């Protein structure tokens, strides 16, 4: 093995360790954040006994989950029952491998170790475990693998609540994957490439895609929320109908693995939203972050985390504010609204890009962005105001029923 390859391997292994450990710790802290945010929204205090301000609560929870009794239902399929938590845990963590979290870091080293030999690396290192050329297609592919864990957990438990949860999960995730996939097509049209690094570079040159592609951003966040199976889309584990849905029969660490997968998915969807629509690690209104260097890498990395935390907080806010959808409402929202709007939207954007770019000859990405933003204002008015007359989410708006005359006359008499 030549020294360059060894240097590359060393760096890759280091990045893998850093990213996966960071995501796992982040997940642990998110469980605390979720409880604190819910407490704040419901005017409570939340966990505050373990450690300063409850900071060690995740450690206590983890320890509790480790030492609790493992149960295995007698009628369950033992192999698949054990396999299911791992199958939802692995894809959730795998997705964090391809999201760039900071500006590239110039790194040169040349040293030798006993037994292992010489390690050489030169040039800028992208701050991502693997900058895959397929970019967000990989994320879509891996997130579609996540459904197996839940579906199999539901089926292998051999209990009717679990099975219903598993079936709901697979139907829901397959439906919303279509909307998720369609909502990123406008990005492909604008950036011309699917790899995350080129999407970020394109946003640094022009506008953040949240402005020129606002409707795609909205569709992406909604279907991403449904992909993570969180409220208001948590049909698979709706506790008032299904006890705990697909993980009813799970206990101790296996249950915790579903939990970790859910929070890792929240982080990934937030990080995807940030990378695709909010410029990734880009710091706005300055070109300082593009020069490279340790300081830039640290600054962009922290800025990325701040942006991701905003979306994580948004998801928690939504969870503790909105009630759960009914299952048929969820399906009609996915199939009868999101997919149609996403399809029409990317056709409109394709025509607009052709008109603005080719026919009018606007080549500056920033000017193009502002034109598309103006178009989006019109489209948003059409979608959110003109089309939505209590139709988008059936029955969510109060429907005034004509009061029968007999009732009013009785009420007036009494």
């Amino acid at each position, binding site marked *: 093995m030549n020294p360059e390859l060894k240097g590359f391997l060393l760096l890759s292994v280091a990045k893998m360790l850093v990213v996966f450990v960071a995501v796992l710790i982040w997940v642990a802290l998110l469980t605390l954040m979720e409880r604190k945010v819910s407490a704040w929204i419901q005017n409570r205090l939340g966990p505050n006994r373990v450690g300063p301000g409850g900071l060690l609560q995740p450690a206590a929870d983890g320890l509790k989950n480790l030492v609790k009794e493992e149960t295995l239902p007698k009628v369950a*399929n033992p*192999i*698949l029952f054990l396999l299911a938590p791992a199958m939802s845990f692995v894809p959730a963590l795998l997705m964090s491998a391809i999201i760039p979290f900071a500006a590239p870091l110039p790194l040169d080293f040349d040293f030798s170790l006993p037994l292992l030999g010489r390690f050489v690396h030169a040039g800028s290192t992208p701050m991502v475990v693997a900058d*895959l*050329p*397929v970019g967000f*297609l*990989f994320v*879509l*592919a*891996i997130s*579609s*693998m996540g*459904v*197996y864990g839940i*579906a*199999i957990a539901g*089926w292998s438990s051999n209990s009717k609540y679990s*099975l219903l949860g*598993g*079936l709901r999960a*697979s*139907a829901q*995730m*397959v439906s919303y*994957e279509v909307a998720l*996939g369609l909502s990123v097509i406008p990005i*492909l049209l604008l950036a*011309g*490439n*699917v*790899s995350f690094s*080129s999407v970020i570079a394109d946003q640094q040159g022009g506008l953040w895609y949240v402005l020129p592609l606002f409707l795609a951003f909205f569709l992406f966040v909604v279907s991403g929320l449904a992909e993570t199976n969180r409220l208001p889309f948590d049909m698979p584990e709706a506790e008032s109908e299904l006890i705990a849905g697909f993980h009813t029969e799970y206990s101790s660490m296996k249950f915790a693995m579903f939990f970790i997968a859910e929070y890792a998915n929240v982080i990934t969807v937030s990080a995807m939203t940030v990378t695709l629509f909010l410029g990734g690690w880009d710091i706005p209104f300055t070109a300082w972050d593009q020069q490279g260097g340790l300081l830039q890498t640290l600054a962009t990395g922290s800025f990325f985390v701040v942006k991701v935390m905003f979306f994580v907080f948004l998801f928690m806010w939504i969870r503790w504010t909105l009630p759960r959808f009914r299952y048929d409402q969820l399906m009609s929202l996915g199939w009868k609204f999101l997919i149609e709007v996403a399809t029409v939207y990317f056709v409109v954007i394709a025509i607009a890009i052709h008109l603005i770019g080719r026919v009018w000859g606007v080549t500056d990405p920033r000017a193009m962005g502002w034109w598309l933003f103006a178009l989006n204002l019109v489209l948003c008015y059409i979608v959110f105001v003109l089309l939505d007359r209590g139709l988008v989410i059936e029955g969510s708006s109060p429907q005034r029923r004509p009061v029968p005359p007999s009732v009013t006359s009785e009420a007036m008499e009494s």
Partner: protein
Amino acid sequence: MMVEIVFYVFAATAILSALMCITQRNPIASAFWLISTMLALAGIFVLLEAHFIAAVQVLVYAGAIMVLFLFVIMLLNLSGRVSDIRGRLSWVVATVIAVALTASLIGLRAYTPERLAQEVTGSLQITPDVAFQSGDLARAAAESRGVIGVFAEPLFGTYLVPFEITGLLLLTAIVGAVVLAKRRL
């Protein structure tokens, strides 16, 4: 060297999973082995520098189609009652199909890269390296135009008409499925 090791790992996984898929009694387990085969194939596609095909293989086959397979198996609850397809007639049919497939595989061995190059280009002057771009050329093309561009330009340029015909065929299938499934239109 490294690439070859990785290839053999994926190839062995694909073949073993395929064998497990057809020998398992439990249909759910079979479905999972099939998913494993598809993932190994996706790995081989990546080794061939066909990143887009690999991603679509996972996205469409392993991610969407197999979920529907599992859905059907889970809803019908087939597990344990599969012996009815193992009659004597099935064995005869299976043997005939297996022999035919093996024979065609042996026949395909004659298709060396040189012969394919000759059939594609009509002469032996062009070497396989030119007729079939090697990994380096594919990698360079993907870097300059992006993985999607490499794939999309021939698809929507040279092969536009076949593409549109395929699209029309799929549309017909969808309309047919809706008409058959929906009792009252």
